[in-house]
């Protein structure tokens, strides 16, 4: 029987766990470089090299450098949540770190909650840095719709964390994790128009539309850059992202393993 007392204790443990996860994350050069620094570097390179011209008929009135702010933020959330959790959980399973956790009284949800919470912290920092760059250098208007942006970032981050945990249950071992995760992630990022705008009528765009990345990008775009005819609150896209997250959570919960299968 889970009591209210158990829940408050577990919640406290999850919050404390976030602190330890944060120390570990920022001290781990691979994690901090690939999942935090890369999106920032990409933004700087793409933003400064794309110039101040308009995208054209695909997104009338939007400059390319502006476009990169929500799109690279989408990349950042994907890497800080999905890629980070998928790789780190696979590594921890291989190293027996998860098995050790299993042998302590820490509830599973509190442990994973701590890891997810830590990814959310990284996501919020990324959002602040990315939007800050956009406002400072890339002619992005100061987001008048901060609530829509925050909700978009949180829904996207939580959903991609759930998907990261789901992917960790599919990856067989730590050696396989970075290539498997990166191939899938970058393929999705490219076809979703993260690094250059994709014609929404193209076949690629239809394929991308089945996956959550493009929907998160569109939702963030609507929240960051006011476009005529687009609502600021893009519930339709956010709903797709949230559904993917729920599916990921369900999948992860069913398949979660504490130990790497031998042989």
């Amino acid at each position, binding site marked *: 029987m889970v009591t209210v007392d158990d829940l408050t204790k577990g919640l406290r443990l999850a919050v404390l766990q976030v602190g330890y996860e944060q120390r570990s994350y920022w001290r781990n050069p691979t994690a901090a470089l690939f999942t935090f620094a890369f999106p920032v570097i990409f933004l700087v390179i793409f933003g400064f090299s794309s110039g101040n011209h308009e995208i054209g008929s695909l997104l009338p009135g939007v400059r390319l450098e502006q476009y990169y702010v929500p799109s690279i933020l989408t990349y950042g959330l994907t890497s800080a949540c999905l890629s980070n959790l998928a790789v780190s959980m696979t590594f921890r399973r291989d190293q*027996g770190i998860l*098995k050790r956790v299993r*042998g302590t009284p820490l509830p599973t949800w509190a442990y994973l909650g701590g890891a997810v919470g830590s990814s959310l912290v990284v996501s919020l920092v990324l959002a602040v840095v990315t939007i800050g760059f956009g406002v400072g250098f890339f002619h992005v208007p100061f987001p008048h719709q901060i609530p829509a942006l925050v909700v978009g970032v949180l829904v996207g981050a939580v959903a991609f964390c759930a998907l990261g945990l789901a992917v960790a249950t599919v990856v067989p071992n730590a050696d396989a994790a970075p290539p498997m995760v990166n191939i899938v992630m970058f393929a999705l990022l490219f076809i979703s128009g993260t690094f250059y705008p994709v014609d929404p009528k193209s076949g690629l765009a239809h394929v991308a539309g089945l996956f959550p990345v493009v929907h998160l990008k569109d939702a963030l775009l609507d929240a960051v850059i006011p476009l005529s005819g687009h609502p600021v609150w893009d519930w339709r896209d956010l709903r797709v992202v949230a559904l993917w997250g729920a599916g990921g959570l369900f999948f992860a919960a069913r398949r979660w393993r504490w130990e790497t299968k031998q042989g």
Partner: protein
Amino acid sequence: MVPGDSAGPGPAIAVRGLRKSYDGRTDAVAGIDLEVPRGEVFALLGPNGAGKTTTVEILEGFRKRTAGEVSVLGIDLAHGGRRLRERIGIVLQECGIDPYLTVIEAVRMHALRYPTSRPADELVELVGLADQRRQRVKTLSGGQQRRLDLALGLVGDPELLFLDEPTTGFDPSARRASWEVVRNLCSLGKTVLLTTHYMDEAQAIASHVAVMALGRIVAQGPPDTLAGRDHLATAIRCPLPAGVLPDGGGLPGLDLPVTVEAGTVTVEVPEGEDVARALHRLTGWAVDGGHDLAGLTVSRPTLEDVYLRLTGTVPELTPGETAEGDRP
């Protein structure tokens, strides 16, 4: 939970008819009974593949049993879960710790998870890592990581501690230091279930041992009397002196039954006979004949001798396993 229940009268671990089979084929654990009294160090011995780890992992709650009754600290494992994990400590082999945390951070993080915990600084001191307390886990040597494992196993002040080959990779002084830690636990009324490959370790710290082979317990008892060890013959051994040729069942001029094998003379003195008298005859014979007995030893069979005999005589031990694997 009733206070004092933990120190209750029942055994720390009670196992009856425990069986575990993987894929429904062979039994990794083929029906064992085990009782570990509270406040004891109990050692589970056996060769690789004997079923030790499977047994221990069932007791720790990592694996589900196929059949049998298991209770740990009076809790049936089927409803154990978190309440039980609050009261046990587990030191596993090859169980990682976040490499980017420092020693003291790792101990503190684990301490949070238990309702009662031992002070982190004291524990780090206890396992001899005080100088490394601010070092990251990834920079520790193998032996230091094992000592941190021990600290993490103890952090929740457990009533029952599982130790899976705790001193593998330790230097001799570190081994002795951790034996001292384990002995002290018992003097505090804690129970320890130990698996080890080192017979001297079992001899030094265990009050009871059980030997497993092929999923069964083949002997059980205090290390000094295991499998009638205290009734086995005392062996007097020395190298065969130069120039002496054994004849039949003895040595020329020596009035003692001896066996000579690989250049070593062994005199077995059965229980109840006088070891001093046999030794006197042997040394008298050597003095008279001018033979050198350098290397002479007098010993009871060690725990290792008994262990090898026990695990070597299980009929289907090695051939059975290969035959199974070769079957088309």
